[in-house]
């Protein structure tokens, strides 16, 4: 039996693409070597957000209870239950994807796939048994894994990647985290919230280096207050594991040796490629054309495996575009505007140009800013950290970029994504009635501020 489409990889690109194709009436199979939902659902986005919620609550109870009038005595936590909850959530959702596969009649095949010929896929399951399948089209969505450093190979217990970090059996007393991108920053916040001594090492001048500088600086201040030691403009020159502990040597702005129970590598990712095919690669990632086709006829690729941004929402978008391009008249689109979110506390969310990028591009722009300190809702909720910063084109006032740091930033950003997608200007955002009292009002106020008309600030 021949499939119309075989998808290799069941993550946000794979499972979404497979379900979409099935909904278009195609015969689809999705092959996954771990569990449906992929990295995002099982070893990434979902479990970490569960852990971070735990951290947020514990932080609140520990540090803010008194200001809210609560007296909490004997507050304690069960580490295994904390980890356990995140696994339960991941497990539920993976089950949900499996259900969606059944509902949409997608054949869900567990095993490791390789491409064995034109339109041919062979799968080896966990017992070593092999089976072969045929398809008109193949979509490779095999994703990525943690990138290792040559002098710091992951051993799984002392030098670890994010996958191990989210299921540690025991809470480490000290941890060194290398890399202050979203993953490093989130784990830094998480471990620190539960009392682990955290050292965060970053090569660039600021943590969250891809974000707007003002936002990175603001988060840096917040982390400092939380007791996280962040070493920026610092590289790791080497490390040794001794007696179950790790010694990390740094150089740069800070040159010292830091000892810890665990070293977490969060410097980036590297692609996972299926065997059997010689793809055209760019820095290791599969090269695709405008239709998401690889150099191999009949083979497409989407998601993390084709390169940045390594974000689940972009992967799902790509998969849908590719599948619609394959089976309908639709002309597939590449990822355009997309948001980036970091779920530490205060949260960070952004879309579009940073101020630095606007300057580099020579774009004439205006900035509108509104601090949450001036927001009624923020005050009432006791979450006054951070601000909304919006960047508009000077001539026409169109929104070019939005940067939010603060409570629920990752939810508030959606409005700005829509605004950019629709080519809205500060007038539309400013004249839309935002509910009061909400944090989202800060977006409206920031638009007013850009052209000199803020009321509440």
């Amino acid at each position, binding site marked *: 039996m021949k499939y119309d489409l075989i998808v290799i990889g069941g993550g946000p690109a794979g499972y979404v693409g497979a379900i979409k194709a099935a909904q278009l009436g195609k015969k689809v199979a999705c092959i996954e070597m771990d569990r449906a939902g992929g990295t995002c659902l099982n070893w990434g986005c979902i479990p970490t957000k569960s852990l971070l919620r735990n951290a947020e609550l514990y932080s609140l109870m520990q540090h803010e209870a008194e200001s809210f009038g609560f007296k909490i005595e004997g507050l304690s936590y069960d580490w295994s239950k904390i980890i356990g909850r995140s696994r339960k959530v991941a497990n539920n959702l993976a089950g949900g994807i499996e259900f969606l596969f059944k509902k949409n009649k997608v054949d869900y095949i567990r095993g490791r796939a390789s491409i064995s010929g034109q339109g041919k896929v062979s799968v080896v399951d966990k017992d070593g048994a092999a089976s072969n399948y045929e398809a008109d089209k193949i979509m490779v969505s095999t994703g990525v894994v943690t990138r290792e450093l040559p002098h710091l190979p992951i051993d799984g217990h002392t030098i670890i990647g994010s996958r191990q970090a989210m299921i540690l059996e025991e809470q480490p007393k000290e941890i060194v985290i290398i890399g202050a991108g979203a993953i490093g920053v989130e784990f830094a916040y998480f471990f620190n919230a539960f009392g682990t001594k955290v050292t965060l090492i970053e090569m660039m001048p600021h943590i969250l280096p891809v974000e707007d500088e003002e936002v990175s600086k603001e988060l840096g201040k917040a982390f400092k207050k939380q007791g996280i030691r962040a070493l920026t403009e610092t590289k790791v020159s080497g490390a040794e594991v001794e007696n179950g502990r790790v010694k990390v040597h740094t150089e740069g702005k800070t040159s010292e040796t830091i000892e810890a129970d665990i070293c977490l590598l969060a410097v980036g990712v590297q692609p996972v490629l299926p065997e059997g095919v010689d793809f055209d690669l760019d820095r290791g990632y599969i090269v695709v054309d405008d239709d998401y086709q690889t150099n191999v006829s009949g083979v497409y690729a989407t998601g993390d495996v084709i390169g940045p941004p390594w974000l689940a929402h972009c992967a799902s978008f790509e998969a849908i575009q590719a599948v619609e391009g394959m089976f309908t008249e639709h*002309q597939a689109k590449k990822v355009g505007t997309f948001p980036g979110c970091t779920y530490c506390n205060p949260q960070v969310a952004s879309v579009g140009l940073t101020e630095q990028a606007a300057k580099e591009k020579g774009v004439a722009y205006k900035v509108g800013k509104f601090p949450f300190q001036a927001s009624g809702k923020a005050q009432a909720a006791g979450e006054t950290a951070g601000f909304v910063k919006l960047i508009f084109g000077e001539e*026409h006032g169109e929104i070019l970029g939005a940067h939010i740091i603060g409570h629920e930033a990752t939810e508030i950003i959606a409005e700005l994504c829509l605004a950019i997608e629709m080519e*809205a*200007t500060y007038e539309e955002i400013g004249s839309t009635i935002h509910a009061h009292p909400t944090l989202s009002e800060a977006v409206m106020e920031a638009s007013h501020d850009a052209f000199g008309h803020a009321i509440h600030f």
Partner: protein
Amino acid sequence: MAVYIEMPKLSDTMTEGTLIKWLVKEGDTVEAGDVFAEIETDKATMEWEVLDDGVIHQLKVAAGDKVEIGTLIAVLLEDGESAPSDDEIAADRSGADAPAEESQASGDSPTPSDSSSSSVTPAPVEPANPGRRVKASPLARKIAEKRGIDLTAIQGSGPSGRIVRADVENAPAGGGASAGVAAGAVAAVGVAAAQAIPVPALEGDQRIELSGMRKIIAERLLASKTQIPHFYLNTEVDASSLMSVRKQINETTEKTGGNKYSVNDFVLKAVVCAAKAVPAVNASWAGDSIIQHDAVGLSIAISVDDGLMTPVILDADKKTLLVISEEVKSLAEAAKNKKLSPDSFSGGTITVSNLGAWGVDSFSAIINPPQAIIISVGSISKKPVVNSAGEIVAGLRMNIGLSGDHRVVDGAVGAAYLAEMKKFIENPALMLV
């Protein structure tokens, strides 16, 4: 009660009239039916009659004045009435002194006023299709406003045909894309707000969703038919010379593997040669002026699945018969395979539609706005004709029709053009020089 005489609307397209000459004086007594003024409209000068008996009290405009329809031009007092003061006149008329609303709906099609200038602060833009809701992003609207670009004339490439910044930035200043239907993923353009006559549901009826192309055809042709004053001319030409020349050429090219010419290729060449002889037809109505085109852009009407496209052969006046023939073939091929680019549709100045292959003798086509004429070509048929010696012989005839925009092309001009076409078709050698 005083009678207020207003500038009358004497024609469909009239918006203003000139009071050429008063035929009465203030104080004259008149009877219903007496002519009292000569009024010049856009088409002719007419004598206008009073509708009531009375005394001419006031002539409100002077001879030579041009005023809008509905403007008060004279006040007539009925027997025994006392004269109203100016205030009373104003009060009496306050409900009625707005020019008749019909002038908007009567089919004026004003176009952007600054189409030829590239001024920094363009004049406010009059929409080409008033009443049509335009889907455009806020940014696109802002840029369009700033540059005086008419949004209603632009095809949107955004979701659901929304006009986005890129579409406006690529539009020529002062105007949108000229006549033509976009190929491939056609933007779904909103259909004009014309009233749809309800269709009773009958057994077995099927509802067919409108494709993007169908919507555009519907909209443009409705606008053309209702807004352009069409007139129609016909001529029957002797196609025998054309057919023998074509046969002669094709016999040779068949042996050498060269281009095979269709009858229509020759007709297109004749269209172009005639346009060089009578350039007045190669023009467009621009609202407050007429744009005389320099080059001839041939819009070729091509029938495709579920519709019609009119891609353009640019600078046809500078192209040989061979080049024209080859371009027609490649455009037709591209049209059928939905491979025409949006650029293929701009720059047309005269459209040619040929239904001869379908056995149609003659027809009157609908003008492709903003062009001034469209040429309709019928089939070639054998029929009895009277020759120069007065005998009835078998002849080979083809009917050529011209539909003209009477605002731009008058009957005599259209006729002169058709005569030129006839000359070129009946004497193909003249197209060589």
